[in-house]
C-alpha cells in the first residue's frame, strides 16, 4: 500500500528522546511516493531543529552597560562566540539526525530556526503545511513539568495537525 503522508515534521533537539522519535518515524511512517518519476510532489520528512536564542541559552550574556552606556556593540567577540557555539550544537544535532536517516531511502530536508522551541515548532509545522508532527518527550514528572513547562504538551494543544509523541524507551 502506498504511503499518503506529504510532509512529516520531526522536531529534534539535543536530547536522545527526539532522535528516538525520528528513528521511530523512519521505521513506522510511509511517505507519499511521487505521482510520476521526477515530479517533486513526493512526500518529505523535514527535520526541524529550533535553536534557542543566544542570550537565553547562554545565560551568561552580561548585557549592555546600563545608564546610557554601549550595549551589544561593546562585547562583540563574546556574543559572537556564543552564537558560534550554538551553531556548532545545531550542526551536530542536524548531522546526527541526518545520519539516522541515511540508508533509509527517505526524502529528507533539514531546517534550523532560532527562537522559542515550542512556539516555533508550531509555527513551522503550520508554515510547512505538515500532515504530521513527530516529537520525543522528555518524560518529565508532573512537578518538573510544572516548572520547566513542556514543549510537547504545548505543541499538542497548539498545533492543528496530528501529533505523535514518542517516549524515550520505544524505538521499534
Amino acid at each position, binding site marked *: *500500500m502506498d*504511503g*499518503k*503522508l506529504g510532509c512529516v515534521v520531526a522536531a529534534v533537539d539535543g536530547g536522545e528522546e527526539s532522535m528516538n522519535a525520528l528513528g*521511530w518515524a523512519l*521505521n*513506522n*511512517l*510511509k511517505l507519499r511516493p511521487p505521482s510520476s518519476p521526477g515530479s517533486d510532489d513526493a512526500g518529505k520528512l523535514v527535520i526541524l531543529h529550533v535553536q534557542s536564542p543566544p542570550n537565553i541559552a547562554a545565560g551568561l550574556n552580561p548585557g549592555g552597560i546600563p545608564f546610557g552606556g554601549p550595549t551589544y556593540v561593546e562585547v562583540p567577540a563574546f556574543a559572537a562566540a556564543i552564537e558560534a557555539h550554538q551553531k556548532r550544537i545545531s550542526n551536530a544535532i542536524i548531522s546526527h539526525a541526518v545520519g539516522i536517516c541515511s540508508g533509509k531511502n527517505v526524502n529528507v530536508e533539514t531546517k534550523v530556526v532560532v527562537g522559542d522551541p515550542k512556539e516555533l515548532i508550531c509555527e513551522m509545522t503550520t508554515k510547512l503545511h505538515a*500532515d*504530521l508532527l513527530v516529537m520525543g*518527550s522528555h518524560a518529565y514528572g*508532573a512537578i518538573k513539568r510544572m516548572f520547566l513547562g513542556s514543549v*510537547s*504538551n504545548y505543541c*499538542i*494543544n*497548539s498545533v*492543528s*495537525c*496530528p*501529533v*505523535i*509523541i*514518542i*517516549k524515550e*524507551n*520505544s524505538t*521499534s
Partner: protein
Amino acid sequence: MEAGGARRQIMVALEPSEESTYALEWALEYLVISPDSDHLILLYVAPESLHNTMITGKEVSFSSHVLSVLEKNKKQTAHRVIELAKTMCEKYNVTYETKVMVGEAKFVICDAAKKLNVDLLVVGGHDFGAIKRFFIGSNLGEYCINHAKCPVALVKRRGKRT
C-alpha cells in the same frame, strides 16, 4: 516497516464523538501501511455509571425506569460507534478486533495499552477551552501522552482549535 515480522498492534480509542471517528479514519488513511503489517485494536470505553457522565459528579437518583432507558441508550451508542468503526476498517481491508471496557476512559485506555503492549495508541483530540480544562483537567490526549508508555498519536481535525 517491512513484512516478515510481527504485525504492529495499533490501538484506537473509540468514543461517541466526531473526533474519535476522524482519528480512526486518519489512522487508516495515513498510519496503517498494509493489512500484513498492521492489526487494529478498537477499544470502546463505556462510562462506569451514569453518574460519571455528569461534570459535577453529584449523585443523582433516577427511577428504575429512567435508569433502564439510559442503560439501553448507552448500549446503543456503544453499538453504533463500534459498528461504524468496523465498517471503516473493513473498507481499508485491515484486520481488527474490538474491545469494550467499562470505566473512566483515560485510565482504562492507558491501562489496556500497557497490558496489551500495543505499538501505537491513537486518540482523538478534544480541544477544550481554558475554563473546561480547569474543571475536567487534562484532556484524554494529554493524559495518554503523559501516562502511556507506547507512542501516542493525537489526531485533531485540522483547523479545529479553541
